[in-house]
Structure formats: structure tokens, C-alpha cells
């Protein structure tokens, strides 16, 4: 048996016998897809609860509430007119609430009959501007009040918008878009976290010194880890994919390009783990460093959230992270069937991997100085 094969087999035996390793490589991504699937595909009511205090005596307040309900974006909860709204918001920990003023109908009528009466008749929306529910309520209420304005003015809207799904993604559901992120994250965490701690353990237990007394070359040891993680992750992610398909009727496809990307990801993140391992002396330090590098990368690279919702400076950081390109490449090939785009992302991932591999090979020393 060659050094490479023997090292893959024996490293693999140890990895697979470690229950923690097996859990994170095989069980964790399956659990993740099931949990996220249950959250996003479970058929739950995704409407926003909108607490409305209608102080109006006339029909316009009721009409506004009816129109808001028709948008299907809200479940309207009536707040008694006797409540102090600010106390009510505080006591119920609300992020958004609406008040329709006392003379809402009469003020509208006054302005409709006499165009010289100044100002708008406002409904008040209380809320926390940092919360997305607040901006959703503002936007939807704006659209509803506009519609009422057109009705009161006797005009009909001419310009409108119509939403249509992109043809190539028509058959996909939310989880199809989410799966590539889970695959990218699993490739990153398993390769990076495991290799950082393997390097620290090998140094602490003098395994590197022992290896240095044998005929195995440093590059053979490095390559064997990359090959092992590629095989392991490919199998684990096929399982995740099959579970996702069976449970949530996912239609995205594990294309050959997806496997190439998984291999490139394993190469990049094992090399990155080895590079971090060069500077770490003990397994405790390895866990801390891998967490410090891996977790921000997980959240900033579009594994869980679209990059577009992030501030521009975070998007700039995401652009410097190899996991971003791995996630993008996987979405390109699995969801959009755009292997040209995937190839570009693959090139970036592979280039990062080569840089990490060369640096790790140069800087990692099995001997003492």
C-alpha cells in the first residue's frame, strides 16, 4: 500500500471511529436541512401580527383595516380604544403597532369636499425601525393608503407591477436555494475545524516528529487529508441531498460540477486548516482559532442569508472569503444550471486553495528548530 493510500485508510478509520467527527460530517448537515426545512417549508402562517387601535368613529378606519387584511400580509389584532398605546406596546413587547386617529373619516371628508384644507390625514405607525416588520408594515400601509387615495379621487391606477418567477427556477422551492449554503458550510466546517485540531494534536503528541522519521513526505500527508475529506463530504452531502429531496420535494440537482466544487472546497479548507495549524500549539487553541475564523465566514458568505441584505462593507468582506465563492458556485450549478458561472467561482476557490496549500507546505515543519 502506498503512503498516500495507507494514510487515507488509517486516518479515515480514526475519523470514522470518532463519534464527534462522524456526527458533524454526516448527521449534522442532515439535521440542519431537516430543521431549516421544517421552519421554512412547514406551512406555518408567515403573516405579521399587526396590532391596530382604531379610534375613528366613521367607516374609513374600518375600510383601512379591511384593505390591510386583504393584502394577506397581516393578521390584524384590534386594540381597545381605552388602551394607552405606548403602554400597550411596552407591556406586550411589540415591534410595530398602528393607530387610526379619532377623526380619521371626518378629516378625510373635509379634505375631499374642500381642496383648500391643508395637510394629510395620517395613521400613525409605532415601531422599531431596526426591525424588518416595521419597514414591511410601513411599505404595505403606504400601498393600501395610496389605493384608498385613488378610490377617493375617483382615479384608477394605470402603472402597476407584476411578479413572475424566473423560468429556470420555477420548479424550485426555498430549500433548493438553501441547500447549496448548507453544503458549502458543511465542507468548510468539517475540513477547516477538523484539520486545525488534527495539526495541533499531531504537534502536541509528537506525531509530526514520528512521521518525520518515516518515509512519508509532507505533501503526501497533506494530500491524503484532502482526498479523505473529499470522499467523506461527497458521501455525506449525497445523503443530505437525498434526505432533502425526500422530505421537501427539492428539485435542485447535485451536478458533476457540484462534486468538483465540493472537492475544491475540501482542498481549500483543509489547506486553510493546516495553515492555521502551523501557528497553534495545542488542541484548545485550535478550537478557538478555528471558531474565530470559521463562524464569521459561515455567516458572512451567504450560507444562511442572501449577501444582498448585508451592508455594503460586509458584502466587501464576503467578497474576500472563499466560502462565498463556494456557495455561489454551488447555487450556480445546482439551482441555475449555470456551469459557466460555477466555473468562475470554482477558479476562485481553487486559487485560494493553492495559495493556502503552498503556504501550509512551506510553513509547516515536522521538525524542531
Amino acid at each position: 500500500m502506498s503512503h498516500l493510500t495507507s494514510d487515507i485508510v488509517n486516518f479515515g478509520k480514526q475519523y470514522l471511529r470518532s463519534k464527534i467527527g462522524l456526527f458533524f460530517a454526516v448527521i449534522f448537515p442532515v439535521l440542519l436541512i431537516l430543521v431549516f426545512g421544517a421552519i421554512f417549508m412547514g406551512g406555518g402562517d408567515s403573516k405579521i401580527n399587526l396590532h391596530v387601535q382604531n379610534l375613528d368613529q366613521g367607516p374609513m378606519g374600518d375600510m383601512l383595516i379591511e384593505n390591510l387584511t386583504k393584502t394577506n400580509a397581516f393578521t390584524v389584532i384590534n386594540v381597545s380604544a381605552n388602551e394607552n398605546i405606548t403602554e400597550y406596546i411596552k407591556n406586550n413587547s411589540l415591534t410595530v403597532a398602528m393607530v387610526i386617529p379619532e377623526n380619521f373619516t371626518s378629516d378625510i371628508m373635509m379634505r375631499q369636499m374642500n381642496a383648500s384644507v391643508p395637510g394629510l390625514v395620517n395613521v400613525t405607525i409605532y415601531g422599531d425601525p431596526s426591525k424588518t416588520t416595521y419597514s414591511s408594515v410601513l411599505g404595505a400601509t403606504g400601498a393600501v393608503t395610496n389605493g384608498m387615495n385613488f378610490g377617493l379621487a375617483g382615479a384608477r391606477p394605470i402603472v402597476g407591477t407584476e411578479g413572475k418567477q424566473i423560468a429556470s427556477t420555477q420548479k424550485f422551492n426555498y430549500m433548493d436555494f438553501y441547500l447549496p449554503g448548507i453544503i458549502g458550510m458543511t465542507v468548510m466546517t468539517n475540513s477547516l475545524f477538523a484539520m486545525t485540531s488534527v495539526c495541533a494534536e499531531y504537534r502536541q503528541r509528537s506525531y509530526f516528529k514520528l512521521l518525520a522519521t518515516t518515509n512519508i513526505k509532507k505533501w503526501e500527508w497533506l494530500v491524503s487529508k484532502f482526498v479523505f475529506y473529499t470522499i467523506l463530504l461527497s458521501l455525506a452531502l449525497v445523503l443530505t441531498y437525498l434526505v432533502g429531496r425526500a422530505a421537501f420535494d427539492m428539485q435542485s440537482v447535485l451536478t458533476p460540477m457540484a462534486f468538483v466544487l465540493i472537492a475544491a472546497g475540501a482542498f481549500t479548507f483543509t489547506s486553510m486548516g493546516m495553515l492555521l495549524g502551523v501557528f497553534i500549539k495545542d488542541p484548545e487553541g485550535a478550537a478557538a482559532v478555528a471558531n474565530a475564523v470559521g463562524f464569521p465566514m459561515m455567516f458572512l458568505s451567504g450560507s444562511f442569508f442572501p449577501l444582498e441584505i448585508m451592508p455594503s462593507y460586509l458584502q466587501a468582506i464576503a467578497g474576500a472569503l472563499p466560502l462565498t465563492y463556494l456557495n455561489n458556485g454551488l447555487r450556480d450549478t445546482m439551482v441555475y444550471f449555470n456551469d459557466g458561472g460555477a466555473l468562475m467561482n470554482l477558479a476562485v476557490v481553487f486559487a485560494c486553495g493553492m495559495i493556502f496549500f503552498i503556504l501550509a507546505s512551506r510553513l509547516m515543519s515536522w521538525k524542531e528548530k
Partner: protein
Amino acid sequence: MPEIVVEVENLVKYYPPDVKAVDDISFDIGSGTIFSMLGPNGAGKTTTVEILEGLRNPTSGSAQVLGADIFKDYSKIRKRVGTLPQNFEPFDLLKPWEAISYWASLYDIRISKKEIDRLIESVNLMDRKNLMSKKLSGGEKRKLGIALSLVNNPELLFLDEPTTGLDPKARRDLWNLIDIIRDKGTTIFLTTHYLDEAEKLSNDVAIMHKGKIIAQGSPDSLVEKYGKSTIIVLEGAGKAGLAKLKEIGISASIDEIDDRNVLVEVKRHSEMKATMARIANSDVPMNDIYTKRESLEDVFLSLIGSKMEDGVLKE
């Protein structure tokens, strides 16, 4: 004169800014012998071993191992050398037979199941061969380490503190094993801070302190050279025995601990036989006669000025 397997000349290892871990040491190791480097923690033993294993570069000096210059040609002798590093821990999740098979492959050795069994048998781990290594005791783990270091059938074996931290029984088991390996013709370079271990196992001992070799030779020659004397105890000889010894011109004294005994101090080991013969030929009354020899421990105390416990010097 046995063939020289290791030849070290003026070896120096200097760590900036001012630590001389190995300070100009020279020694030879003959084929088929056990050479022990004895000294407290931090004496420079492991640094020396790791230089000779090709794992550290020296600051200056030269070293030939199995005829090769280790700084230029270590790759040529790699397969002829075995290594057990300090505080060896095996791969937790490999069984002993798997670890041996894996290690053999890294030396490009095709090893059969029979050969693996023979190796496991040689270190008395046959009943543990299918157990995960993490379940082995401390002594068994070291034995597995020795089995791994023997996988390439080395001519020279480096054992860096192989019994440190083990209980007395496990230590004695390993001593027997090391003796057997030596008897098969393997040269062994042993580092230890156990004086009894060095005395029991070694053909040659180098006492190392603060990076320097302060004494070197066989345990007997070191005791003779640096020890004060050997004592002949004449049990139950009493004052009558003391008088009789004076008559034949042998200087003696009453044992301060037990005044029924008489003690005869022999300064040189070479004088022992003649002195014993003179006592035997006289009519000194006694119940029993035996010798109390000084040990490496006394030599160490006399050279360093401190006792050593678990590698730490005690004032």
C-alpha cells in the same frame, strides 16, 4: 572493540539569546550496546537525541550515525533507525495491529499478519491486539510505541525516557523488553532520569548536566571512579572480629547502626577480591559476610551535589 554505531564530536545546540541546551559534547556508542544518557529534566538529553534522529539541527559539531553524516545523509539511514519519542501516546482510535501495519507502510515495508503478530507478541501485547489503543494502560502504550519503533527492524533504537511516569511493575516489564532487544543485537540509545534504570540496563552511561557530559563510562567504572568505596559487612563479628582484622593488617570499624557488625572499607573495586580472600583465610568470627556497594545514585550525588527525584534535582 565493537563497531562504532554513533559517533558524536563537539556537538553544540544553542538557543538564542543565551541557552546552551547542548554544550560541546562528544561520545561514541558501540554496536549492540545500551548507551544511557542520564540526567535531570532540562539537561539536554532530548535535544541530543532529536539531533541524532535528524529532527533538530545543531548549532555546530558533527555526528555520524550508522556511518552516515546525519546532517547531510539522514535519508540514507532513516530505515535503519527506530524511534520512541518522549511521552509517546499511540493513535487512540487504531488497534495495535492496525497501528503496526500503518507504520510499516510508512517505511515502505510489506508486513504480513504473521509478522505483525510476532511483533505484538515480542512486546507482550497479544491479548491487547484488537483493543483500541486508547484503552491500553500507560505501560502497554509504551510497549506499543516500542513495537512501532521496531517495525523496520532497526539497527539503532532511540528510546527517549521510555519509562517516565510508569508504575514500578510496568517499568520492570519494559526493562526486560529493552534487555531482550539489546540481546538480539540492536544498539539502544536510552535517555532517562532514573538512576536505577541506567545502572540496570546500560553498558555505558553518560551523565549529563546543564548541556555537558560530566562523566561517562560503564556503571561499574563510574562507581569505581567517582564512588567513595565498597563496604564489606562482617555480620556478628563484633569487637573480637575487629581485633582479629587489626591483627592481619586490615583497617575496619564497628557499624554505627548495629555494633554487632564490623565494616571494612575497600577503596578500589580491584582490591575487593584480595581483601575478601584475606578475610576468608583469617579466623575472624562472624555469622555472615556480604558487600554493600555504592551505586550510580551515590556517584550522581557526588558529581552534581544533589539527589534527583523524577528528573528534578533536590537540594
